[in-house]
């Protein structure tokens, strides 16, 4: 009887010992937002466009470099072939 009276007199939820701490995390619907949806959306869209823009820029730069090299090689080849065709003609003269 004495012990029951003592238990009723205990203050509830004010002073907890280390053993009273929760030992499991329980999920709750509609809890406090931890991740900003707006920020995740912006990061996602930025990453998507970065992938596309990077590929397009790299492709155009490489294409321009290849085109320059092709035109220089073509002109060098045509010069060399022109000189070769002129050389036998001069030899006959």
């Amino acid at each position, binding site marked *: 009887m004495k012990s029951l009276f003592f238990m009723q007199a205990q203050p509830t939820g004010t002073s907890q010992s280390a053993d009273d701490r929760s030992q499991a995390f329980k999920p709750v619907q509609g809890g406090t937002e931890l991740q900003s949806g707006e920020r995740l959306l912006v990061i996602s869209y930025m990453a998507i466009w970065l992938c596309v823009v990077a590929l397009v820029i790299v492709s155009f730069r490489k*294409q321009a470099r290849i085109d320059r090299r092709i035109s220089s*090689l073509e002109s060098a080849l045509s010069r060399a072939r022109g000189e070769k065709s002129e050389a036998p003609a001069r030899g006959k003269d």
Partner: protein
Amino acid sequence: MQGQAVQTLDAKPVTPSAATGSAAGFGFIALAAATALALVVTLYVVAFRAPVEATMGIVQKIFYFHVPAAYAMYLGAAVCFVGSAGYLARGTRRWDAVAKSGAEVAVVMGMMVLISGPLWAMKAWGVAWTWDPRLTTSMLSVLIYVAYVLLRAFTGDGDAERKFAAALGVLGAANLPIIHYSVQKWGGNHPKVISNGGGGLQHPDMKLGLMLGFLAFTLLAITLVWLRAKMELSVSKLAELEQEALEEGIGGD
């Protein structure tokens, strides 16, 4: 024998005539303009017309680019499969260029999927990644095409390397149906909003946003494949010219 056939077909000039070249150039510019327009319209519809989803909030709008990017990855992989099969059958540089460009587009689109998906999941699931069947098979597929691109970048450009890559391009496509049906077969966390059993998009503007996303990413995938294939053919032409220059005894610079 096959090697001889390859050499013969490879000897064909890879550059088109001036008339077809200018027509192709105009076609590419028209396609690029249509792609840019479709992307802008899609962004407008997603940002200003499609409503915010009731439970997930604004982060659900990742969906309008995540799903079309996954579909465009399938397109790139299918182009790689067709190009690879064509190269194994015919052995021409054109098929090889198609296969390589398809793999590159599959990698880029796959990266978009693997970046945007976890960002959505951080909000929707509370974790960026789980070893869900669809996520795992999608990552496996992207890794296959990354392997293809690395193989082409860091090995030589000989017939043997191209054939090995073509075999990888054909075998890599086997994973695509597994990705698609993984949700139905093995369950998992990945949503199936628009596939069998899903509730679908509940608002007409949500459907419009997704349809425009599919259109924009189809055009984007075609544009990127065209751009990269054109570049690959230019690389082949450059290799031919360098060979000719060596035979003529000139450096070219």
